[in-house]
């Protein structure tokens, strides 16, 4: 694929392999390093209105080479301070997708306006924050809430808006449809799966927060199933994420229906160079698969 020939909706990127949100995303310099390592673009840490220190440690638990749990608790410097990080990343040439989280449509919309002013190339809405209405549930599990948030952001900014979908739902495609209907430009799928680790000798959860989110290779089959079902029901592009470590993994997401992918946990387990390695290898897979370009491979595993 030629540099810059690749697109998610109206957005042009040098390649379709992005750094996922929450990984190397607290500092602008780290975002720039991830871009330098070969990412097509980088997604920022999810930013809220006020600074948040997140949950106490332990915030991560490695389960094995196949997966890990985290419960960071959305630490972030807040929307007032974070623009300086984006500025640093941009100064070093990195296209940044700004990730946001809020408690409701209004907060999302005002964050979106602030984020838009930083020069990000798109917004990604992290809809996995606690939902006031439903006890123990995430805002992003409720199609009505998704619709409301996306609509509010859509009318607040002109940037591309990506809605990031949770796997903790009975109907990922329904959530994606809600986002599409409200004007989202793309669906990012998926965030981590709700999970728990208990230390048997101490008879307590390992993570300070209790439950956390599963990421890494074990999440891949779950993410693929979500992308698969979303592809069957929406027409806007899908950005696949969950357990991608190799170009083969990324290609599987493309075949399932993704038009771009994000890599998270593998940046830790395989080093940041994994971003470039996956991008180059994906290109090879597409060619060896006999497709003229990536667009033709998107969703190719679906029965025609």
């Amino acid at each position, binding site marked *: 694929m030629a540099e810059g020939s690749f697109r998610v909706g109206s957005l042009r990127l040098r390649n379709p392999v992005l750094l996922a949100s929450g990984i190397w995303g*607290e500092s602008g310099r780290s975002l720039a390093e991830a871009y330098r390592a070969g990412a097509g673009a980088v997604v920022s840490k999810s930013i809220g209105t006020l600074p948040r220190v997140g949950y106490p440690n332990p915030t*991560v638990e490695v389960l094995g080479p196949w997966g890990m749990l985290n419960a960071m608790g959305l630490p972030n410097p807040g929307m007032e301070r974070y623009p300086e990080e984006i500025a640093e990343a941009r100064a070093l040439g990195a296209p940044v997708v700004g990730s946001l989280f809020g408690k409701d449509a209004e907060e999302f919309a005002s964050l979106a306006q602030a984020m838009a002013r930083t020069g990000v190339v798109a917004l990604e809405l992290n809809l996995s924050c606690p939902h006031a209405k439903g006890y123990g549930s995430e805002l992003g599990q409720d199609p009505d809430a998704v619709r409301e948030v996306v609509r509010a952001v859509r009318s607040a900014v002109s940037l591309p808006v990506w809605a990031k979908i949770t796997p903790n739902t009975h109907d990922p495609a329904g959530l994606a449809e809600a986002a599409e209907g409200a004007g989202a430009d793309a669906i990012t799928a998926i965030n981590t799966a709700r999970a728990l680790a208990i230390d048997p000798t101490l008879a*307590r959860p390992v993570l300070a927060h209790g439950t956390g989110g599963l990421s890494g290779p074990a999440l891949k089959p779950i993410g693929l199933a979500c992308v698969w079902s979303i592809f069957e029901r929406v027409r806007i592009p899908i950005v696949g994420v969950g357990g991608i470590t190799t170009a083969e993994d990324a290609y599987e997401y493309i075949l399932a229906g993704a038009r771009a992918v994000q890599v998270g946990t593998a*940046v830790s387990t395989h080093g940041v160079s994994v971003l470039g390695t996956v991008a180059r290898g994906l290109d090879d897979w597409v060619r060896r698969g006999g497709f003229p370009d990536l667009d033709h491979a998107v969703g190719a595993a679906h029965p025609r």
Partner: protein
Amino acid sequence: MRVVVPVLEVVPETPTTVTLTFPYPPPSEPGQFVMVWLPGQDELPMSLSQTEGPVKGVTIKAMGETTRNVLTLSRGTRIGIRGPYGRPFDLSPRRVLVVGGGSGTAVLAPAAEAAHRRGSTVTVALGATRAEELLFYRRLSSMEGGQVHVATDDGSAGEHGFVTVVADRLLDTGDYDALWTCGPERMMEKLRASARARAVPFFASVERQMKCSLGLCDACAFGPFHVCTDGPVFSGAQLEEVFDFGRFKRDASGSRVPP
């Protein structure tokens, strides 16, 4: 992967510092750190002050709530350990000046000993607020042929004033292939300038907020580096690339704050 182990010994080192030892067979090198989980409280990065053999040790200074509680831990308490993480000191230099400030000496002691065992000449300068807060004075003095120079803020032991002054004098009067340091960042920043002025290779063990320790979460972002995976030991050349060194750290929210 985290394992839960019993504390074997709680050794008081100074009125505000204790060493915890615990069974932990994975091999480690001086300069590396582990994540120490005090269940129900916090998980903190701690350099290994004892790196050899199946029993490892960390030396902890009471700073905040969690580390204050460590002073009162008892034998048998179960703690979680994961690691070792990070890059160790390069032990090849033949003449090393080791400059420790406060609890920073924790990570320097095993490095100094290992270099000494390999035949290097090790000169030590220790700083502390007062005499009784000097860490590992005896341990480091017992290295054969080694010499421990001391400075205290209140003059209650050794020179009255900052250990950086002692270090500068040593740099001026001796020949060194490396300067190793760990301590308050402004102290390290000063030493870096001293070492650079004298063309002595400089290595510092740096502390930053840590969460994952896996090069994932960015809590320890440090210029183009992550302290957990690229550090905690950085060379002077690396530190040139880090604007924040001596100027800013990041708090748990990722905001830049004074160090």
